[in-house]
């Protein structure tokens, strides 16, 4: 049997019953990646030796009868913007092509403490800026369901790896939809937790007030397991939330009876692919049939979310990316003096989308423009948060599309940044509000997965997982794996 096709919780059962070893599981996943990664290109760096060594340690622990965590021995992947001590962390940028962090991100430490196996660092849009991984400074990751199409972004490598069987689970980061979009396009579960639920220490910053790490998984239960392993307060991250971490699997089977589901009408935008809209509406009907109550809600400031996001995120990025100057680390360009060295380093090191966003953000913060752009965006952000507060006064969760369409063709939008930005119109508001949101497979259109978005109030991850699980169990979307031609 192909172990790489199983879910983490299934593998965990087999492991605990000693039917398989962690080394066997890891070998299966590594072998799968050997065969498909030349096609999918999920990984920037693969770490098979370290993965096998870790799997061996887990087997030894099990042999000694020691207690291990649910993720012990289960192979996963990290988006390559999460610091791993001694392993290159590139952010898919030429400027960090050879950067080896001397320290681990908090999530890296937590996963190590959970005895998880890490098989590699996944591709992304450079510095997590993009919706397709086409902005990677190295190569484009392909959608496992159709290799002519994008896997979504920015965590495209993380989504594709899980969908292609190159990892059982993975982590991505979501600033404006960067976990949920690839989850939807690749037909897997993706969750952006509440801002502050997962420590950002060691996550290379794109937009600090929006960035949040979260899991990709093949089903909802796995998603809950990974979330449990990475969540929690971290004193190294001042913005992390000091609240206990519940057992996210505890409520999974509680159903949706009596749950109030909100349908935000502003999320059903003009120009939506009809099959996508139909799938979302059908899914909602099913949840209602399962006992949920439907309430139509209005979130009037949704239309301003995209503009607000592109001011706040780029402003923060312009400052966060200031440190890539060729002085202390990263790519250094030749220059006759310090200023020309700065310019060459950054011009050579950053790709066009990163440069575009740095310029946008620098402009938004410039004196004379600050009030009209950045400050105004902060005010609109407050209004958007209030939209959510009002909505969650009426309903338990909101259901909406992840994106207006299914995965688009590689190259289709690269010449049109605005069209690319519009892909995130349904995912951005929850980043601005800091609330958790989950992407769940809810159908196919022409063989391409469709993602449904479930959004909840602060720290409502368990409820989102409960709704998602209820829906998932009535379908077999999570049992399907993309058919990819294996290459020996």
């Amino acid at each position, binding site marked *: 049997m192909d172990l790489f096709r199983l879910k983490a919780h299934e593998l965990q059962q087999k492991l605990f019953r000693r039917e398989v070893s962690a080394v066997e599981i890891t070998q299966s996943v590594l072998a799968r990646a050997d065969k498909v990664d030349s096609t999918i290109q999920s990984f920037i760096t693969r770490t098979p030796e370290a993965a096998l060594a870790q799997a061996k340690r887990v087997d030894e622990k099990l042999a000694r009868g020691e207690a291990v965590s649910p993720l012990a021995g289960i192979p996963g992947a990290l988006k390559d913007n999460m610091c791993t001590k001694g392993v290159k962390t590139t*952010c898919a940028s030429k400027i960090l092509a050879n950067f080896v962090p001397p320290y681990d991100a908090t999530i890296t430490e937590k996963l190590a403490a959970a005895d998880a196996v890490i098989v590699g660092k996944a591709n992304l849009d450079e510095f997590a800026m993009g919706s397709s991984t086409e902005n990677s400074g190295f190569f484009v990751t392909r959608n496992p369901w159709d290799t002519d199409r994008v896997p979504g972004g920015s965590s495209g490598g993380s989504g594709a790896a899980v969908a292609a069987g190159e990892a059982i689970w993975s982590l991505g980061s979501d600033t404006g939809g960067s976990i949920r979009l690839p989850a939807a396009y690749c037909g897997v579960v993706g969750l952006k937790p509440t801002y502050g639920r997962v420590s950002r220490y*060691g996550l290379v910053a794109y937009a600090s007030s929006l960035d949040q790490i979260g899991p990709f998984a093949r089903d909802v239960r796995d998603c809950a397991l990974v979330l449990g392993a990475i969540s929690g307060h971290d004193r190294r991250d*001042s913005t992390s939330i000091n609240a206990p971490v519940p057992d996210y699997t505890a409520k999974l089977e509680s159903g949706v009876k009596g749950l109030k589901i909100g349908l935000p009408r502003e999320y059903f935008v003009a120009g939506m692919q009809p099959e996508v809209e139909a799938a979302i509406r059908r899914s909602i009907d099913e949840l209602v049939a399962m006992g949920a109550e439907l309430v139509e809600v209005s979130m009037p400031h949704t239309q301003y979310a995209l503009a607000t996001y592109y001011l706040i995120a780029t402003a923060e990025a312009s400052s966060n990316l200031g440190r890539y100057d060729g*002085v202390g680390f990263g790519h250094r360009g030749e220059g006759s003096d310090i200023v020309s060295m700065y310019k060459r380093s950054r011009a050579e090191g950053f790709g066009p989308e990163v440069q575009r966003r740095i310029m946008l953000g*620098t402009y938004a913060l410039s004196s004379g423009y600050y009030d009209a752009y950045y400050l105004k965006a902060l005010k609109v952000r407050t209004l958007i948060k209030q939209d959510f507060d009002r909505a969650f006064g009426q309903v338990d969760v909101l259901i909406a599309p992840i994106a207006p369409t299914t995965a688009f063709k590689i190259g289709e939008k690269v010449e049109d940044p605005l069209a690319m930005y519009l892909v995130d119109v349904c995912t951005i508001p929850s980043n601005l509000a800091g609330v958790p949101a989950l992407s769940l497979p809810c159908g196919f259109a022409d063989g391409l997965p469709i993602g449904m978005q479930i959004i909840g109030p602060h720290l409502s991850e368990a409820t989102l997982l409960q709704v998602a699980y209820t829906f998932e169990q009535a379908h077999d979307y999570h049992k399907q794996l993309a058919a990819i031609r294996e290459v020996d």
Partner: protein
Amino acid sequence: MKFETVIGLEVHTELKTASKIFCGCTTEFGGDQNTHVCPVCLGLPGVLPVLNEKVLEFAIRTGLALNCKISHYSKFDRKNYYYPDLPKNFQTSQYDLPICEGGYLDIEVGGETKRIGITRVHMEEDAGKLVHSGTISNSEYALVDYNRTGVPLLEIVSEPDIRTPEEAKAYLEKIKSILSYIDVSDCKMEEGSLRCDANISLRPVGQEQFGTKAEIKNVNSFKAVQRALEYEQERQEEVLSEGGRIIQETRTWDDSRGVTLSMRNKEQAQDYRYFPEPDLVPIVVDSEQIEAIRRSLPELPDARKARIMKEQGLSAYDAEVITATRPMADYFDALIAAGAEAKAAANWLMGEVSKLLNACSLDIRSCPVPPANLAEMIALIEKGTISGKIAKTVFEAMWNEGKTAPVIVKEQGLVQMSDEGELGNIVEAVIAANPQSVADFNAGKEKAVGFLVGQIMRQTKGRANPELVNRLLKEKLTGK
């Protein structure tokens, strides 16, 4: 036309917290290059700052000592600019909501007290240090030492209330005195733990609107601040008197040449693109916290000076000198507690004690003579056991040998000769041995007395009570 000078000062002081403002690295001065660093203060990708609570406490202490309002809600902002000593290419500082605002301090110049407003006090991080291979203009390369990167700083900004370079110096001395009293900074200008930028402009007397200002940087001592401002005052007056225009600019002080030089034109002011630091949460301080810190404040220099003047009857000048630093004032209080008379205690402290401390480059906290021992010695002078002159010898011996005054006096036989009979005999013998001097005296040459006193002191090894010697000599010479 007569001009009035307007000066405002920005003081940066390094706080003496054990660790840096946003990471756990030590703030210790020195150390091998780039050894007091970690991923956070090196600004590596992915790191986040965490505010050192001690920095906040020190900032509030300082604000309270400077009579400021403490903000219940304040925040950090990023000041963006590119410089190789700034690893993130932004400095985390406070912009529109500083922790302290609207305070003042009183200075004394020419016997008059003047109040100088404090606009604000805010927290920020220090930058690293560039080490050039040659001079700044011809270096082939520069190296960066990040040991100071992230050391906590307070920036204390004064109102433009200062009118003379002398007031500026007095203001700085007062700031230093207060910061050292409340124990938040070492205030060592030579180690860069206290730095000052000065804004200076001139305006015609009677005009309300400020003139165009120049900012003077790179001034490394209080004396230099005064000199730089004096130079700049003169330069601006000359320019204006000739009908010229002052350019708003930054000027650097060249101490060896005694001039300020233009650095860069501030008319194209740098745009720092300040915005709220998203990696730190806003700082919320409640009244209880503020009051707890207020209660923990020591007596401040002004209050202490007033108390010493009132309780001990010292002059304003003496009290000012003695209370300039807290350890000095503590030493004084200990002398009084050990029974020393106030004026004598003050004189010894400002005289011999300070002289020897300076000569040995010692802080009064490591003074080898404890206050009780000095008080005991002062008592010996008062009782007449030793003379004030001999006392200096005794004090030096106490300093060097660590013994008490009575022991030294006994060992070296330094007890003052105050016996009239015994001393009378010596006086008579000296008069008999120096007939020429006696003749000179009788001829009206008063100087001769000095010679005879010297002879008597030599014979008594300096132990003779000087007042008694003078009286006896006069009596015997004039036959009265």
